């Protein structure tokens, strides 16, 4: 299985950009307005840079390659869903920078609790494509990550999983490790009561938790402008006395820097923080959704201009580090990787009745053994 966890985010000699807060190391936030100017960003949509980038060219290329691979996965998944090979799929097109940037900031053994839309994030953090795909065929075994990978299966409930990352981090803190937990969630999830309780617990017990919100503009059909009247999602951190920052979620380096700083703050005993990555869901909510019912196509066109891959590609090209050949190679390789993963998942034998009975408890209880008997009688 191709779990990808390369060097980025570790041992990196950070060239801290100028607009980071001196105390927390986190990007500063201005409270005044909701405009994009108030967001922390390093790479402009056109691919020019606002500041010195704290990554090497090689690292930049690796981030780009990961985003390409993720996009290939996304495109293929939609196609496979149409062919009936995958259950409903939630595309992340447009959110590649947020997801790859965040995951790249983590350490191999950190905990991750993310959502149904976070395939790229989970993959980059160590969740094999194979198992993500297996899960999407409707198979619980997709949730059985390899030993050593500390990632929970994609959360289907909205909101419930954030507090898990608080408990996970709390356990690590009590056990004296320096492992942290990152939870990724959408703008919509911030409306749930569980968001509030998770943020509060994390702050109260100063657990090493990074709250990573991908504000992609919508909770299914409900726009962020209606979900809340707060100036931003980042500002909600104030209600818990924790740092909160807004970052350009389509800027992979800005996300990487912000999450890395949040992670190192957490790792060093500085407690939790909230990062709002402002991005856009280019596709439908899921393959079952029709976005034309609730949003204008012009919106998508606007965001197309801020595409997270294109800007890095432009940047690399300007540095002579991008060629069409390389692009083709990346795409071909990614396609092969994903296709192999799909083949692997599809070759997994059908799950059995016995397995279903056996995985409720560590040991099946007498009522389950009765079921097993009865089911067998009926050839289940």
């Amino acid at each position, binding site marked *: 299985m191709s779990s990808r966890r390369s060097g980025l985010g570790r041992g990196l000699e950070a060239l801290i950009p100028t607009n980071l807060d001196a105390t927390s190391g986190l990007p500063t936030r201005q409270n005044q307005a909701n405009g994009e100017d108030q967001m922390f960003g390093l790479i402009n949509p056109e691919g020019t840079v606002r500041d010195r980038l704290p990554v090497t060219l090689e690292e930049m290329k690796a981030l780009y390659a990961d985003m390409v691979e993720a996009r290939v996965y996304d495109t293929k998944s939609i196609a496979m869903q149409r062919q009936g090979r995958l259950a409903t799929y939630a595309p992340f097109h447009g959110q590649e920078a947020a997801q790859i940037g965040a995951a790249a900031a983590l350490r191999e053994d950190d905990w991750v609790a993310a959502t149904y839309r976070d395939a790229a994030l989970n993959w980059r953090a160590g969740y094999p494509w194979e198992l993500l795909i297996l899960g999407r065929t409707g198979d*619980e075994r997709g949730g059985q990550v390899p030993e050593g990978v500390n990632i929970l299966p994609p959360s289907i409930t909205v909101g419930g999983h954030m507090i898990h990352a608080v408990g996970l981090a709390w356990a690590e803190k009590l056990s004296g490790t320096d492992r942290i937990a990152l939870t990724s969630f959408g703008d919509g999830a911030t409306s749930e*009561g569980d968001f509030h309780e998770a943020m509060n617990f994390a702050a109260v017990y100063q657990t090493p938790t990074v709250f990573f919100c991908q504000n992609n503009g919508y909770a*299914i*059909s*409900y726009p962020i402008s209606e979900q809340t009247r707060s100036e931003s999602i980042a500002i909600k951190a104030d209600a818990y006395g924790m740092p909160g920052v807004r970052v350009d979620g389509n800027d992979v380096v800005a996300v990487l820097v912000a999450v890395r700083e949040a992670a190192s703050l957490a790792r060093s005993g500085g407690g939790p923080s909230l990062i709002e990555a402002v991005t856009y869901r280019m596709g439908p909510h899921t393959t*079952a959704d029709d976005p034309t019912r609730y949003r204008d196509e012009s919106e998508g066109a606007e965001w197309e201009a801020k595409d997270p891959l294109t800007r890095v590609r432009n940047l690399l090209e300007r540095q002579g580090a991008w060629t069409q050949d390389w692009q083709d190679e990346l795409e071909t390789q990614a396609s092969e990787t994903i296709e192999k993963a799909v083949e692997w998942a599809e070759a997994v034998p*059908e799950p059995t009745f016995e397995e*279903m009975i056996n995985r*409720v408890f560590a040991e099946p209880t007498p009522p389950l053994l009765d079921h097993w008997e009865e089911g067998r009688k009926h050839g289940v």
Partner: protein
Amino acid sequence: MAELNLAQAVNGALGMALDNDERVVLLGEDIGRTGGVFRITDGLRDRFGENRVFDTPVAESGIVGAAFGMAVAGMRPVAEIQFLGFSYPAYDQVVNHVARIRNRTNHRFGAPMVIRIPFGGGIGAAEHHSESTEVIYAHIPGLKVVVPSTPRDARGLLLAAIEDPDPVIFLEPIRLYRAVKEDIPDIYYTVGIGPVRVERQGEDITLISWGAMMKETRAAAGVLEEDDVSVEVIDVRTLSPLDREGIVASVQKTGRAVIVHEAPLTAGFGAEIAATISEQALYSLQAPVRRVTGWDTVFPLKRSEAHYLPSVDRIVSAARATLED
């Protein structure tokens, strides 16, 4: 008359209720602009406006709690929760407040509201999208729990629920939304909350079910009739208040009963029906009351769904065993 499926019957009922009573408002996640994930509220926001049909934040406790406040203040809110598995965050509001305000205020205030919730499996959905935990509501005093299985009942029971002075949990079987069409009166009518519906009369055995499993139950009855078994089929329709009389009368006649539901066996609502029969019809019983249900497992994902869902075959076998006992 109009030929409608269950989804259309519900959509029509909601439109009529909004038309009929200005105290009626709808609220829920994505019910406005998109007409809900199952399109059950399709077109209603356009027709009745933003002040009658509200999209809400993703916050189930908030939806139910706000609807409750509206109901206490004299409105007739109809809230939608997207799936039964997402109703749990609102469980506290439902049990501790919605179900109790009449008792708590000795009738001074009531909560005339409906919570519509799609439920049940069989469509290969993601985790939490296939729950049949109706019993967690049916057990709670102060709630009525209604589960239609036909377009006709869906419309009539929903309108009755909206008229009801007390809160109603209205469970809509996802698998049946678009499964069959039925000729129903395309007008405002109600079907009384409470009485079971004897869908087919018979002498030898009573098959009892509700919701989506009515489909397999009917099919099983068909198979049995081919063998000249005379089958009575009961659609419970209302879990609470339970029409014990209707059920007991049938079993007193047939002497044999099989209960079918999709929820896990242990402490599923079938237990209540079996217990009722054995309390009130023991001396008529010629065989043990069998339950054909989901297993005591988590409702599985798509690839294992067939292992979980009670099949026509399992129902027929149970009925045959009951007939032979």
